[in-house]
């Protein structure tokens, strides 16, 4: 295990630009929150590069800053200091409207609790990002049904979320995250509400369908069962990246399935 760890955890920045372009480039990113008069430093100088075609995982204990980092990367939280570029674009230079539009066109989201709209059918839920981007309703529904077909739910397009299992709901959420062909897909604990088998099905889907050479996936997870799907694992603690695991599937094979054993 030690051999695959970065030898300098304080400088966990990885520059793996050879061959492929960068999807995300963060340098010295900090973020603090004020609560009850106290400032909590959620991110303390994050350096992170994610390449195109890469599936990166952010892992670490609760409160280590994973969710804050993913929020900054996705452009829904503003950083305090440092630099963060997504596909070369810096959120700090954008107006709120530009940021919203950029997010709508470039970022797809998969949430822990799926966050599907309960009153909409699967197809209507998947169509939402297209509707937000101004696609006509009929065209959006058609594209949504095609995407649902790709994730194996072609027969359930008219089902409401409550009529679907947890795994099926997450597949709908993945279809929703991909339908508008975003270049970055951000997933927050996508398998934590799913059993082992379903979790693996979802991860296979993300790896095989959502990921391609022009797209990057960043997944926040606690779920050690899915570490083997990552190209790299960024281990966080106390607002910093303290470790990077490369090619974890190989290490999982060597250690019996747990990259951090």
């Amino acid at each position, binding site marked *: 295990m030690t051999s695959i760890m970065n030898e300098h955890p304080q400088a966990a920045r990885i520059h793996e630009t050879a061959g492929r372009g960068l999807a995300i480039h963060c340098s010295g990113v900090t973020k603090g929150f004020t609560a009850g008069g106290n400032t909590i430093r959620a991110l303390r100088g994050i350096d992170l590069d994610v390449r195109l075609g890469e599936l990166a995982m952010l892992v670490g204990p609760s409160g280590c800053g994973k*969710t804050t980092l993913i929020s900054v990367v996705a452009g829904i*939280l503003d950083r305090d200091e440092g630099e963060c570029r997504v596909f070369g674009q810096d959120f700090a230079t954008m107006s709120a409207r530009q940021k919203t539009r950029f997010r709508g066109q470039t970022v797809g989201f998969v*949430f822990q609790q799926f966050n599907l709209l309960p*009153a909409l059918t699967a197809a209507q839920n998947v169509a939402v990002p297209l509707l937000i981007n101004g696609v006509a309703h009929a065209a959006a529904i058609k594209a949504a049904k095609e995407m649902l077909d790709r994730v194996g739910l072609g027969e359930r397009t008219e089902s409401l979320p409550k009529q679907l299992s947890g795994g099926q709901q997450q597949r709908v959420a993945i279809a929703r995250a991909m339908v508008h062909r975003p270049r970055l897909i951000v997933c927050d604990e996508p398998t934590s509400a799913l059993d082992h088998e379903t979790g693996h099905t979802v991860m296979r889907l993300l790896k095989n369908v959502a990921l391609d050479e022009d797209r990057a996936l960043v997944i926040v997870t606690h779920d050690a069962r899915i570490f083997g799907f990552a190209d790299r694992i960024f281990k966080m603690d106390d607002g910093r990246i303290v470790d990077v695991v490369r090619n974890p599937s190989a290490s999982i094979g060597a250690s019996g399935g747990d990259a951090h054993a």
Partner: protein
Amino acid sequence: MNLVALRMLMGDKAKYLGIIFGVAFASLLMTQQASIFVGLMTRTFGFVSDTGQPDIWVMDPKVQFIDDLKPLQDTMLYRVRGVEGVDWAVPLYKGLLRARLDNGNFQTCNVIGIDDGTLIGGPPEMIEGSLADLRRADSVIVDIVGASTRLAKQPPIDPATGKPIGPRVPLKVGDFLELNDNRAVVVGICRVSRTFQSQPVVYTTYTRATTFAPRERRLMTFVLVKSKPGTDTRELCVRIRQTTGLAAYTSGEFSWMTVLYFMRFTGIPINFGISVILGFLVGTAIAGQTFYNFTLDNLKQFGALKAMGAGNLRLLGMIMLQALVVGLIGYGVGVGAAASFKYLSGQSELAFRMIWQIPAITACAVTVIVVLASLLSIIKVIRLEPAIVFKG
């Protein structure tokens, strides 16, 4: 996204119906109470409305409303007729006289004495008999409501039980009345507008009415005037005032003066106003709270939409659309229920008059309700951090 907004709204049926109920309740209460208020106020000048031929009502300057009876000298009629621009002028008697019923009880009646020669000032609609029958001796015409209720005759008494057999028998043509110790014979049945006072209305000629009435020096209550074609009625009113020293009002002015009197000197507007205000407040509270709860319940969904690229303007539009839909449906249900209330109350004595201004004002009030109801939700959603979607 409009479809998404509507699906979100209608997906939670309990809250959706709750918001509509709040708006509908407010609309119903405001429309119904305001319509009853207008209905009651309309009744105050019902007699003026029924007397359609004259343009101008001339009366004692101290008269404040239609039932404020301050008789004039009969000679005033000729002075009014002498004013330039008057086409014709006729006397009108209006007074409260006692009728003796066949069971010995007394009933106060609103007796109207109309001009003997022209019969101007008669009832607006005859149900039975004819207005010309008033030229017969001792003749009177009675309104249908009075004839069927307060002036109706007692049914025969069962000698065994001493109780009446069957309902009271309505007064009909040919029956007799005793008005202030004077014999009167019913020659017709008419229909009149309900007035604020609920006494039976009895029409007769002016001369006969003055014989029915107690002896007084002054008996003429009003002079009804028709202006010559092309004469400005307001200017004619001024001339009559200047020439005779009497008060002269157009029919509209006299009606409005009567309404203002009742509004100023009775608690009616305050009572109905309180009901309308309560309807507005309760409707706003129910609709506002339910709509806010609906937004809170959907906060994560709004957060997800925001994260996925829906801007504040788009979300604001969605909320406004939701508010507009519940406002329109609630308004329709409420106003429809108020109209049904009138329809179901049918032939009852309910004073209900829904003039077009009432639904229009209710629509404005409902707009205010839905705007207030959605305002908190809009503020909540605009301030919403999309990062909420990443919180478990």
